[in-house]
């Protein structure tokens, strides 16, 4: 007989209810009434089922067993022992699930820490070992400063056989004044690049400095220096030394500079880290402190606090390279 009939056939449903509940139940009486009074198919067979059910009811004590005192004592002792051993603890499956979840969280945290550590240690190494050979921009300033825009007020830069600065003879000697150029095209913050400047040092002096810098802020305040120190990473020749200035205000000192020397200043940068060196001598390697999202601009700036001849410092070329 198909299962569906037991769901849809009202009499079969009543009959199976009666067979379960047994003699004496309301369903039993109803089912027998219908078998007696209504023309139910296979009524004899169904009556036989009821007879069997009555026999089961008569034999309901069949295999009824009770716990003896020994069984109960033994069981209660085991319960007592169990409650002492694990006082109302969580079920083992729950404990196992909790331990498993903790392990998974631990593994995730561990992997996260390892990745974080590896990114802070591997990042600078990658930067150091990267090969950047694709030149995206180069200027030797032989014919002006195309691709650059001027910055600053009182110091005028000129591009002719290199980039030089015209320092006014009446410049106020108390403070530094700045002037220079900034690349027109920005570089994406996510991309690694290298700015390479070749500087001829005619006469190292504290009066005049030259800077190769990278900034994430292309507009400059109306100040004598025309600079955004908190948004700039600067590699400069000032006096007789190469120095690196970071956005947080710290300064790293590099090699000393000799008169007549030509130096290569290099800033290699990715999203987080920077390598600054001159003539392959590392001055700084670490986090650059610029925004990780805003585009970068490469610039060259002269700073002067007194008159100097234009050939004291000459920027012979600037290149921008990418991998």
């Amino acid at each position, binding site marked *: 007989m198909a299962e569906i009939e037991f769901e849809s056939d009202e009499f079969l449903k009543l009959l199976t209810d009666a067979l379960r509940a047994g003699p004496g139940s309301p369903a039993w009486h109803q089912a027998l009434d219908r078998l007696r009074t209504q023309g139910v198919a296979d009524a004899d067979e169904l009556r036989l*089922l009821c007879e069997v059910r009555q026999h089961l009811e008569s034999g309901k004590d*069949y*295999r*009824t067993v009770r716990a003896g005192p020994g069984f109960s004592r033994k069981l209660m002792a085991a319960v007592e022992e169990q409650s002492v051993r694990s*006082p*109302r603890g969580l079920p083992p499956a729950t404990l196992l699930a909790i331990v498993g979840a903790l392990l998974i969280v631990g593994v995730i945290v561990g992997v996260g820490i390892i990745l974080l550590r590896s990114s802070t240690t591997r990042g600078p190494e990658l930067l150091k070992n990267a090969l950047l050979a694709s030149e995206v921009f180069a200027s030797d300033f032989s014919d002006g400063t195309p691709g650059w825009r001027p910055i600053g007020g009182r110091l005028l830069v000129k591009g002719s056989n290199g980039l030089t600065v015209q320092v006014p003879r009446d410049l106020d000697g108390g403070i530094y004044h700045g002037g220079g150029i900034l690349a027109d095209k920005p570089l994406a913050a996510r991309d690694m690049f290298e700015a390479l400047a070749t500087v001829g040092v005619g006469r190292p002096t504290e009066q005049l400095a030259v800077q190769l810098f990278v900034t994430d802020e292309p507009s400059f305040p109306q100040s004598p220096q025309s600079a955004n120190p908190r948004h700039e990473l600067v590699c400069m020749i000032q006096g007789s030394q190469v120095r690196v200035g970071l956005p947080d205000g710290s300064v790293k000192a590099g090699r000393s500079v000799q008169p007549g020397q030509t130096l290569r200043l290099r800033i290699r940068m990715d999203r987080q880290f920077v390598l600054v060196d001159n003539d392959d001598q590392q001055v700084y390697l670490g986090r650059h402190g610029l925004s990780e999202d805003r585009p970068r601009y490469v610039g060259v700036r002269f700073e002067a606090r007194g008159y100097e001849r234009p050939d004291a410092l000459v920027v012979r070329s600037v290149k921008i390279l990418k991998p």
Partner: protein
Amino acid sequence: MQRRADKPSTPRPPRPPAKPRADEPADFKPSGLGRSSDEELMLRTQRGDRQAFSMLYERYSTSVLSYLYRMMGNLDDVESIAQEVFLRAFRFAPSYRYPQKFATWLFAITRNLAINYARRRKRSPVRSVTELNLEGVDMSGDPCQIAARATDSVEKQEEIARVLKALDDLPTDLKEVIVLGVFQDLTYSEMAQITGTKAVTLRSRMFHGLKRLSRQVGGPQEPPNPAP
């Protein structure tokens, strides 16, 4: 007629009318454990009340032991399985969710353990011999004695004994629904919760199980092994 013949007839009052939370009764009184419902006793057990658990054991030990005896047909493992049933019920009391019917929860544990034991016995026929600490085995284990106590009619006695003996030869799924529904007095819905089988399937099994037993009292012969 006496319903739930193998369970002690403990009066159970209705649950407290007002409850602060849907999943927990309002309050427990320190005394009167005997009047508490099974579910209330189980809540007390969850809080570490071993006396409440003893009460549940008193109410259900006979049911569990008899169920196991009827299903497994031998006494070898009944003791140890039943002991494990109550130990697990105590250990896993925190997993019981009020107001689920306690009997359903307990029989689900019992059934699972019985199935596991049966599988293990198939793999390893070596049986552990335990000291028998059960009562009533001699009287209730013999179908003829049971039948003789039920009626004076010799003809009826023979029929009852034949039906009871035939019960052992039923396939497990058919026997189970008769043992749970007839002997343990559980409804189809309760059996469905315990076995994880649809109620309509259980109705079908009840019908076909009784039909097979009816052959013992002169019913129509069925072909062997018709699957319900």
